[in-house]
């Protein structure tokens, strides 16, 4: 301790920041057990807010939507990221590989607001919509049968998954590409000597090498699946709330559509519930991680 005292001293401001901005605000958890409108003193109500929450259809719907959308989104993202990273790995021309990787990676840097604006225009059910115009031109649909991709409950989620894949897959491929770059070349040579073709090499060398990384990425992201707001908020609209409303957008509308004075106590209770579920997920994922990663957890 004495030997490293100067490093501990250097760490003090970071610890102070963490306490001030991460732990101190947790005092606000007490509002979950009160009726609090942000102006008058909070009135203690015990577990009333939680009872109200579990008795509210909109909340239960939002919770279900959050889990479904996040989980499926995660599965699709990892699957596509693996496929694309394997395909990229097969490109022998280094320059072309880098260009392809950059193009795939670039959408990650766009903000969700910009992404939503672009896709709202592309998917517009009017003569201005690129996709609908294409479908009309190839004769797939008539001009009076344009599809409102973002306006129907039946099509909103598939479109959301596609947009999210387009935007976020590139980020995931970075991790898998790094793993693939570390695979011993001699393994591929040995497989070739044993008569394995391209598919055989993929099956017996590439996939096993990626398994650990896939599981790690899955576990790490699973812990955060309840944190879903921005991407949904910018793409949803009044007509698709049933399938698109998630916990955080539910809290947002509950707060800002309340006609001026929201009950922060109730919305804090919802947030606290979400955090508790998140903690449980992190602990469960931590146990899985220890099994998969030779005793190394994620916390």
């Amino acid at each position, binding site marked *: 301790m004495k030997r490293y005292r*100067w*490093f501990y*001293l*250097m760490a*003090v*401001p*970071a610890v*102070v*920041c963490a306490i*001030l901005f991460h732990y101190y605000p947790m005092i606000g958890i007490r509002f979950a057990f009160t009726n609090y*409108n*942000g*102006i*008058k003193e909070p009135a203690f109500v015990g577990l009333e807010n939680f009872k109200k929450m579990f008795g*509210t*259809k*909109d909340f239960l719907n939002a919770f279900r939507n959050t889990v479904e959308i996040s989980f499926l989104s995660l599965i699709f993202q990892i699957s596509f990221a693996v496929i694309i990273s394997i395909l990229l790995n097969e490109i022998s021309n280094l320059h072309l590989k880098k260009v392809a990787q950059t193009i795939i990676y670039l959408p990650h840097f766009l903000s969700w607001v910009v992404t939503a604006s672009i896709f*709202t225009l592309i998917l*517009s*059910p*009017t*003569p*201005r919509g690129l996709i609908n115009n294409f479908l009309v031109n190839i004769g797939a649909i008539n*001009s*009076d049968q*344009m599809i*409102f991709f*973002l*306006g*129907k*409950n039946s099509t909103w989620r598939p479109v959301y998954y596609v947009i999210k894949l387009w935007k976020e897959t590139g980020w995931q491929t970075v991790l898998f590409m790094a793993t693939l770059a570390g695979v011993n070349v001699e393994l591929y040579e040995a497989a070739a000597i044993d008569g394995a073709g391209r598919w055989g090499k993929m099956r017996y060398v590439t996939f096993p090498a990626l398994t650990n990384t896939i599981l790690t990425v899955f576990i790490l992201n699973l812990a955060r699946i309840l944190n879903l707001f921005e991407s949904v908020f910018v793409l949803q*609209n*009044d*007509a698709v*709330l*049933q399938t698109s*409303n998630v916990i955080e957008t539910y809290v947002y*509308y*509950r*707060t*800002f*559509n*309340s*006609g*001026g*004075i*929201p*009950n*922060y106590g*109730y919305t804090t209770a919802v947030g606290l519930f979400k955090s508790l579920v998140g903690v449980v997920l992190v602990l469960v994922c931590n146990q899985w991680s220890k099994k998969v990663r030779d005793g190394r957890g994620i916390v």
Partner: protein
Amino acid sequence: MKKVFALILAALMVLSLAACKKPTPTPAPQSSQAPQTQPGGETDPAKPSEDPTPAIEKPTEISVIVNGTWPDAATGALDAFVKKQEELTGIKIKLTKPDHSSYDDVLGQVIASGEWPDVIYTCEPYYSSWAQQGVFWDMTEAFEASDLYQRAVEAGSISSFKSEYLNGHMYGLPVKRGNGAVTYIKKAWLDAVGLDAPTNWEEYLAVLEAFSTKDPDGNGIDGDTYGVSASKFIQTEPPYIMYLPEVWQDAYPYFVQKEDGTWVDGFLEDNCKEALERMNYIYEKGYLDPDTLNNATQNCRDKFYDNGPGSFGVFTYWACNWAYKLKLGLEEKGVDSELIACEPIKEVKDAGGYIDRVSYVWCISSKAKNPEGIWEYYVSKILDGGEMQFLWTWGPEESYWSTKAETVQGVEYKEGEFHMLENPDNNTLYVNAHIDPTGQLVPITNSIIPDPSATVISKEAYDCMLMFNENSRGASITPPTDAGAEYNGEIVSKKNELIAKIAMGEYTLEEAYAEYKNGGYEDHAAEIVEQLNALGK
């Protein structure tokens, strides 16, 4: 060396944390006396007003929070605006100006933080809710004793001030009319289809049909345009139904007070169901732009300015100055810019006309150290009829306007001739600062430079203003209730969802109303109605 470097880094990080601490404001001395009535007298417009009474302490510094309706900081106009105010009032202004689009959210967080600025700019529904919670100082006495009150009576605008009263008390000062939206139609499109501006629902439908099925934009393709578009089927803040008045007519899907004074859930009334059927009809027929569901107002304006596929011919948008701005937008796109600002159709006229929304108001925080002084020396001066009102209406000299001899946008002005300057952001002329002269509540009579409204306000804006003032009804304030705070968020979201689904034909009326009832929303709304009706007793 490493130890010294570590120490310096640690010290820098600690200092950066310390710099985040807000300086404690020096409390101003409390004023214990009520403001005295002053006779309306002449004041020298070149100097700040003399202290009307030694009993009211003039504050030395006040904190103000306002949205994007004050001049822009990037052009330097905001600094000039604030500096001139400080010069006229002798009060230092500590300004907070959040981004316009997120102003209500940020202001809500500021109020929730408990650290309220002295002077707050806000609107419904926050005004009445926060007033009920005691956030704002009661300015009723001060207003009714002021010479502003007398001038408002003389100008015939006292009802606009009284519309801000809550249970007989005033907590916020409106400085301009709330304004509302009127329906504009492209004249060239009407001429192309051989129709006149509609005067009733049937004629309105005929116009929409012609715009949607014929070739009003003259590009040789029938049916690639729409009759009307809007930003959402229904808005998320009062008065909610501004953008499709011909569809809504006398309906109001939220809580509404009937003529006999009773409150009802307007969503359950027959006129609302009829309005929703009309909405569905024009959507299914293809007269209403399907993108209405997703449109922001910017999208709507951009599509209106275009004349190609997906554009539309009928647009309900802000009255007065926007009659001129929309014309400029069309001119910029090289499109025939003649617009007809239509009088309301008969069905809307019978309901009272277009909706004049409840105005934004300037409030004084109940935590302010010297609210009487803030009223006397700052808030009431906004409408002093003199230099301060001139500044708030026309902006700072040499930023927004000038009297120098110069050429602006190809027009030559002589020395002493008042003219507006070019906004560097969009290369159009400034039309006003915070107070829209077309929504003026009391006249400017006492400024060094006479009020230039007559020469500056465009003919389009002026004519629109006259038409709107003659054909509008004031929106009412829905008083806040405990049940409203509890359930309004869910009820508004559900109603908006059902309205969108009915409009798009996904739900029938029966299905939508069954969902409203079975989901418990009708019961929650009934609780709110009960509390609203109890307020009046």
